């Protein structure tokens, strides 16, 4: 049913695209006709004026087509697991192009301008913003080797061998000179980030390989740009001197470093701007997008590497901007980037298909086949050779399997196509042949390699990406390890990787963060920031899963903080008045009460409406937490208290709630104080049990009153109590101190009654 509807809609769409082509080509004389006649016509109630919306209308139709395609692929269940999306999109493009041609119109081609200025930047920005910095910098040497040396090797190998082939007798290609061949070699040797992303995202290989291939595809842009311009400039002249080569090397350094510098400057500007956006949260994402796009455009003005500028901008911006912007802006940025890059990606592949149908072709068997073969061979040889050298310097060596994946994952894509398209047909008469060859290579890599890489990955049992949840323990130990290794390196006197990273971090913390991050967050150490982030994430997960009864991470543990604290020997607890048996009684009663409470709590959580508690409420929560902590300090100083033992095991969330927010409850204070403390639970729906000092009333604990275990909970942002806390504190902020004293000295039924109301919906 869905499929049928989908096909109908698709047909309609394509059908509407064709008359557009027709309307485009036929001249429009309607306007002139109206002006020249003075005959009064009846007032046009309904008129058709397509021209002035033509361009945006067409663009929207193409975007709509692309998005519907994406939808459609996932409706067909088995198809998307066999064939990568990029292949399907190219096929659709071919079909659409074919349809348009059949109707007799000229199918549109992928204009290089549109590609480089509008379609490519979102994809690269998405990649750069979410670049995993740690694996990237750890493998930077390897990535650079592959990107620079590998691309150079590929270009020259393919270019020169093709030239040799062209010079052979019997092949009608004598007119292709060396420089043109080298130019062609350059264009075809660059691994394409769009294609790599499209295919690798679906196969989920491990982080190392992903970052190697992907990093290479990003960083080889500088090499490609320089070589392209070099060969293009001089192909008309016909010769290249040593000076030119030398200048080329200088140009390479300028292009790559210049691109990075431009990107970094814009990135810092963006970070700095975001420092002041606390009052206009709505436009925060805009700054990130606009600054990054301008970085790209600025780099392109000087013919620097726009891709590297964009990556640098995204990577530099992210840590500072994320500390400054609100949670919602962060989500917005993430989703917009993903959306744009996804649409771009789809459009690029569809247009590749359409352009294949449209573009002028000149098929030459030898040239094309040799190109395909040579590019494959060059890639494999390059990877093997480079890995051999690189492995001498790496701690984690690249195995044969890794090398195979790296070689096999070197896909070519739309960048190569657009670069050929940019060639001037007058200067390069063999441009059409190049075009055909490039398209063949692209099709080969995307279809053959793209489709087979997934079964090959499974066959070779390549390590897949581990979906590890970053736990706080890992974070602690990773940081510990970093410091440890830095220390060892210092002791050995070896200024290695860790030493410089540590220096950079320290510099970052001391100077840069102060400038670019607003307010207090600038001093927050990374561990705390991580901890807060983790708490937030857990809280959101909890809320999304509908309350506390069902946890997203199945943790059947019943361990609470009580288990972890060292057992106090009886001597430490000086219980002046209560006898042991009394204590036991109280303990048992409290325990049963608390269990009943918890069951009630759970059943209410599912339906409790959560007014968005995370809306910039973080700072409020922290302030409230501090207030509660101060109040607890006050209480603990009150001398006439009774200890109550810990309640029975909670669900881990409640337990974690308690421990994460109870600075005083479980701490060593309980040990040092000779007289234990009472704690009042403000957040429970029930009133605190009127257990008074010296146990006068303790002998008749009111069974009907379900107490909340007399635990004072400071607001825990992370757990099920959150909404209650918020409600509690909003209502009873001022009443808290009074309520405490009232409970301790004058418990009355009235106090219990009105406490019931606000909490129970």
């Amino acid at each position, binding site marked *: 049913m869905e499929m049928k509807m989908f096909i109908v809609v698709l047909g309609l769409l394509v059908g509407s695209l064709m008359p557009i082509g027709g309307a485009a080509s036929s001249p429009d004389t309607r306007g002139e006709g109206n002006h020249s006649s003075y005959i009064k016509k009846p007032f046009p109630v309904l008129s058709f004026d397509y021209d002035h919306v033509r361009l945006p209308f067409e663009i929207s139709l193409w975007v709509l087509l692309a998005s519907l395609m994406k939808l459609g692929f996932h409706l067909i269940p088995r198809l998307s697991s066999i064939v990568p999306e990029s292949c399907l999109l190219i096929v659709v493009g071919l079909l659409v192009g074919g349809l348009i041609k059949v109707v007799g119109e000229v199918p549109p081609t992928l204009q290089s301008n549109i590609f480089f200025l509008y379609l490519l930047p979102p994809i690269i920005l998405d990649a750069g913003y979410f670049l995993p910095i740690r694996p990237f910098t750890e493998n930077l040497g390897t990535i650079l080797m592959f990107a620079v040396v590998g691309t150079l090797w590929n270009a020259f190998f393919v270019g020169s061998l093709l030239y040799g082939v062209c010079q052979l007798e019997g092949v009608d290609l004598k007119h292709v000179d060396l420089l043109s061949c080298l130019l062609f070699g350059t264009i075809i040797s660059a691994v394409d980030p769009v294609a790599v992303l499209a295919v690798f995202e679906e196969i989920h290989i491990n982080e190392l390989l992903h970052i190697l291939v992907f990093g290479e595809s990003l960083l080889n842009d500088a090499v490609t740009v320089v070589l392209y311009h070099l060969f293009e400039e001089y192909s008309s002249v016909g010769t290249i001197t040593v000076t030119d080569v030398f200048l080329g090397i200088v140009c390479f350094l300028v292009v790559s470093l210049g691109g990075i510098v431009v990107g970094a400057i814009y990135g810092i500007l963006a970070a700095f701007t975001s420092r002041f956006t606390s009052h206009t949260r709505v436009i925060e994402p805009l700054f990130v997008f606009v600054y990054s796009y301008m970085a790209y455009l600025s780099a392109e003005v000087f013919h620097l590497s726009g891709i590297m500028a964009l990556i640098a901008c995204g990577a530099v911006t992210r840590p500072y901007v994320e500390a400054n912007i609100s949670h919602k802006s962060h989500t917005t940025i993430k989703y917009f980037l993903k959306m744009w890059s996804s649409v771009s990606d789809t459009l690029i592949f569809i247009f590749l298909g359409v352009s294949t149908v449209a573009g002028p072709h000149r098929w030459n068997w030898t040239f094309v086949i040799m190109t395909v073969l040579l590019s494959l061979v060059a890639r494999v040889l390059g990877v093997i050779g480079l890995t051999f050298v690189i*492995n001498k310097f790496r*701690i*984690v060596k690249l195995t044969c399997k890794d090398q195979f994946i790296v070689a096999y994952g070197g896909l070519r894509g739309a960048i190569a196509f657009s670069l050929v398209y940019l060639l001037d047909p007058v200067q390069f008469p063999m441009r059409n042949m190049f075009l055909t060859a490039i398209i063949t290579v692209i099709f080969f890599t995307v279809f053959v390699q793209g489709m087979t890489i997934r079964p090959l990955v499974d066959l070779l049992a390549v390590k897949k990406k581990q979906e590890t949840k970053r*736990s*706080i*323990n*890992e974070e*602690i*130990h*990773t*940081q*510990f390890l970093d*410091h*440890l*290794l830095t*220390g*060892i390196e*210092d*002791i*050995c*006197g*070896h*200024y*290695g*990787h*860790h*030493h410089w990273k540590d220096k950079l971090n320290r510099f970052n913390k001391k100077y840069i963060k102060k400038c670019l991050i607003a307010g*207090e967050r600038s*001093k*927050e*150490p990374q*561990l*705390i920031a991580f*901890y807060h982030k983790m708490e937030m994430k857990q809280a959101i997960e909890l809320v999304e899963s509908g309350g506390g009864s069902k946890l997203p991470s199945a*943790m*059947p*543990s*019943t*361990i*609470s*903080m*009580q*288990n*972890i*604290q*060292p057992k106090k020997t009886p001597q430490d607890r000086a219980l002046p008045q209560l006898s042991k048996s009394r204590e036991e009684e109280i303990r048992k009663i409290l*325990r049963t009460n608390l269990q009943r409470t918890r069951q009630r709590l759970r059943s209410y959580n599912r339906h409790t409406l959560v007014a968005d508690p995370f809306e910039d409420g973080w700072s409020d929560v922290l302030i409230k937490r501090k207030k509660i*902590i101060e109040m607890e300090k006050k209480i603990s100083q009150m001398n006439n208290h009774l200890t109550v033992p*810990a309640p*029975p*095991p909670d669900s*881990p969330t409640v*337990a*974690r709630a308690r*421990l*994460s*927010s109870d*600075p005083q409850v*479980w*701490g060593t204070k309980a040990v040092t104080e000779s007289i234990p403390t009472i704690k009042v639970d403000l957040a429970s729906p029930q009133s605190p049990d009127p257990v008074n000092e010296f146990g006068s009333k303790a002998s008749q604990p009111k069974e009907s009153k379900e107490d909340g275990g007399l635990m004072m909970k400071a607001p825990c942002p992370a757990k099920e109590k959150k909404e209650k806390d918020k409600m509690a504190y909003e209502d009873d902020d001022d009443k808290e101190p009074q309520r405490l004293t009232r409970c301790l000295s004058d418990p009355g039924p009235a106090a219990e009654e009105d406490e019931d109301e606000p909490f129970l919906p």
Partner: protein
Amino acid sequence: MGASQSGRVPEFQDLADKTGFSIEQMKNLHNRFMYLTQDEDTLRREHLENMTDLALNPIRRQIIEAFFDTRNMGEKEKGCLQEIGFEEFVTVLAFFKPPKPHIAEEERKTIKKEKLRFLFNMHDTDNDGVITLDEYKRVVEELLSSTETIGAETAKAISDAAMLEVASETVGRMGPDEFYEGITFEQFMQILKDIEIETKMSVHFWNLETMHCGK
């Protein structure tokens, strides 16, 4: 110096076989040792504490302690040596050797276990076989000690959460009266099994020129 150098070569050979360094690396390490101790025979804590590079490291005390800890020399008991010789110096540094690329799975596991044991000993200062909450809290506090604006509560909150996580992951269900002593070595290995310790906890020892030997 020349005569004593050549006399040391057989010594180096033994140590090299024991720890897995090459002769070249041993020579470099020996030069470094001499530099640190200012040509004395034994290394004391003051020598390491006087290093300026180490001064900014938040966990420097634990790193220095690790060098003087007898548990890392192969003893079962914890003891604090006052001074160590070259052999102990190299033994500790051997924990940071990167594993050879093509080794058997068993050997890899052994190396991983040794390195994790080293880490565990750094945390477990009283050598009772478990990392208690206090010890863990001290670790977190030291990590955060490089910033001034850290409240004691946050450190406690973090270490509490971390301990709870370890307990939840490794032990599962516990009754209310049971007491979780601390992180045992097996649990430690379990929570850190996803971090590839054998490769992460490694330092390059091959680079000759970057060793500043003060010569």
